[in-house]
């Protein structure tokens, strides 16, 4: 709040805005913000609820023997009942209190797991950790909608990701239950953003957590066709990058940063990984159409990702996609080509990375954007460095390469800064 007041005072002094406008801006920002004294209270209340609930879970896992079955059953209901009472109070009595809302939802979320655990041990109920997590998910995911709790929202992302990873580790394949759970969290986020709720704090976290969850889950959907998962991942990262650049759902500011970071880093990681000969060799041996034909979930995921990718690329109608968004067809073709000629595929992949670096550098000069220019130079540098591990080059050649790249950094930045200064004049 202090920043906006400082900025507004500066604009008023420079004569950019008048006093009336300045007052209106400050009043609007004050109205949007939670009173700053409440924020630590909310955070500590949430942490307190989580710790109390986890403490109850751990005490439950002790497996007390001296009580009768009915006593243990009655005690088993207590954590969940207490959580429900707190949620009812939060929704009906303390409707405007964020502290009540967030803390009660977090408490009920975790205590439901504690109750399920205690019932399981009291009655010797069988089942795996995945069935336990699935039941827990079904019982708690609606909570974020009913209480509009961002803590319940973040916990829902965590539990659905945990469920997906556990099913993969126990059975070798993901489960479709992750799909509806993940869909529910995305629905909540879109609902809150469209409803113009204050999502600044949690929006940034969600922008990172949701892509991370998708990244973990996607690999579990290719149990029989693992090599095809790389094309799926590339499609996912391209989709994230396109969503980051789309103007829709841009408020609150900065929440989509996670989409951009993970999308961009993911694409670069896959490109650089695929630039190695040994890796392309492995892909060439394992990328079989027959594996894909046998794996229904892989076909569905790959098709869904490609359809979504094409839709986002050309929507709204008439939009021209940026070059960074059309890498997927080339990447997919090169991987498939590796099965025919790995050496040629490696050359193509390295040329693709080089072209990306050149595009960033050229665009950086054209837009006079230092960040883009340096990103291009970094990509180029990394490409050269990684090739040191592939090809046997002498120290002299490596030294000269580093000198040229380092000098290139200095020269390119100097030229751009000079060009920007000339424009300002």
């Amino acid at each position, binding site marked *: 709040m202090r920043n906006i007041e400082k900025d507004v005072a500066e604009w008023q002094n420079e004569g950019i805005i008048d006093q009336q406008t300045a007052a209106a801006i400050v009043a609007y920002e004050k109205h949007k913000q939670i009173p700053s004294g409440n924020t630590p209270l909310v955070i500590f209340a949430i942490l307190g609820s989580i710790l109390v609930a986890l403490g109850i879970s751990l005490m439950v896992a002790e*497996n007390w023997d001296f009580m009768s079955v009915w006593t243990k059953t009655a005690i088993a209901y207590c954590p969940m009942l207490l959580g429900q009472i707190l949620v009812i109070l939060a929704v009906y009595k303390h409707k405007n209190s964020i502290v009540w809302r967030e803390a009660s939802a977090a408490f009920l979320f975790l205590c439901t797991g504690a109750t399920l655990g205690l019932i399981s041990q009291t009655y010797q109920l069988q089942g795996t950790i995945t069935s336990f997590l699935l039941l827990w998910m079904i019982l708690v995911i609606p909570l974020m909608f009913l209480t509009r709790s961002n803590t319940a929202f973040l916990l829902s992302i965590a539990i659905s990701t945990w469920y997906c990873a556990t099913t993969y580790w126990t059975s070798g394949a993901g489960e479709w239950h992750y799909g509806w759970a993940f869909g529910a969290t995305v629905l909540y986020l879109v609902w809150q953003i469209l409803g113009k709720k204050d999502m600044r704090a949690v929006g940034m976290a969600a922008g990172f957590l949701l892509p991370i969850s998708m990244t973990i889950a996607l690999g579990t959907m290719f149990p029989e066709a693992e090599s095809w998962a790389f094309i799926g991942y590339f499609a996912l990262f391209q989709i994230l990058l396109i969503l980051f650049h789309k103007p829709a759902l841009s408020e609150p500011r900065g929440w989509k940063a996670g989409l951009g970071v993970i999308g961009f880093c993911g694409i670069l990681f896959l490109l650089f990984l695929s630039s190695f000969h040994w890796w392309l060799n492995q892909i060439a041996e394992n990328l079989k159409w027959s594996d894909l034909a046998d794996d229904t979930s892989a076909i569905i995921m790959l098709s869904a990702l490609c359809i979504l990718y094409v839709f986002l690329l050309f929507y709204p109608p008439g939009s021209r996609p940026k070059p960074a968004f059309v890498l997927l067809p080339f990447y997919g073709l090169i991987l498939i080509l590796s099965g025919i000629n790995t050496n040629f595929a490696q050359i193509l992949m390295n040329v693709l990375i080089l072209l990306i670096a050149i595009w960033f550098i050229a665009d950086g000069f054209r837009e006079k954007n230092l960040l883009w220019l340096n990103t291009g130079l970094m990509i180029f540098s990394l490409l050269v460095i990684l090739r040191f591990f592939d090809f046997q080059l002498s120290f002299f050649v490596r030294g000269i390469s580093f000198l040229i790249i380092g000098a290139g950094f200095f020269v390119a930045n100097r030229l751009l800064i000079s060009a920007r200064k000339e424009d300002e004049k």
Partner: protein
Amino acid sequence: MKNTFLKYLLPLFIIFQLVIVTQMVWQHAFTSQKGKEFRFRCAMYDPVHPFAGRYMRLNFNDLCVRSEQPFTEDNDMAYVTILKGDDGFAEPGMLSTRRPENTADYLEIAPDQQFMSYGRRDSCVRFRYPFDKFYLPEEDAPRAEKMVNEALRDTSVQVWVSVSIYRGNAVIRDVFIGERSLNAMLDD
């Protein structure tokens, strides 16, 4: 979604949570009361469930049973009838993809508990029982594992678990070493 609509949904959601948890308790109590008791020979070891605490993992001998219908890898739920052998211990009868109609003494076997036994001429299908955990107090679990391991080394003593079975559901009653309950031995 308007606030008032959500406020009406909240009581329904709370009832839903209570109903699901109560249903778990009810199913156990019903099966325990109505079910027939069977004895299953087993071995055990002691892992940990992150929420329900320590338990003994029950291992049964390699279970292989003939099937009425041909089995493929993509199965739905299967049902195995349970019979009492001449020695008083339970044995699997026939595996079927249809729920048996002439007996209540059968178990539901989920797809992840079934697998084909390749290379055998009599189309034997291997499976796992749907019960494989016996929860114990935390401090007793290591002692229990030690007692069971000592008992397993003595061929004259049987380690077995008592299970009530009724219409596909199974409830573990207790674990026995010989004729003594494990819980009773731990209390001594």
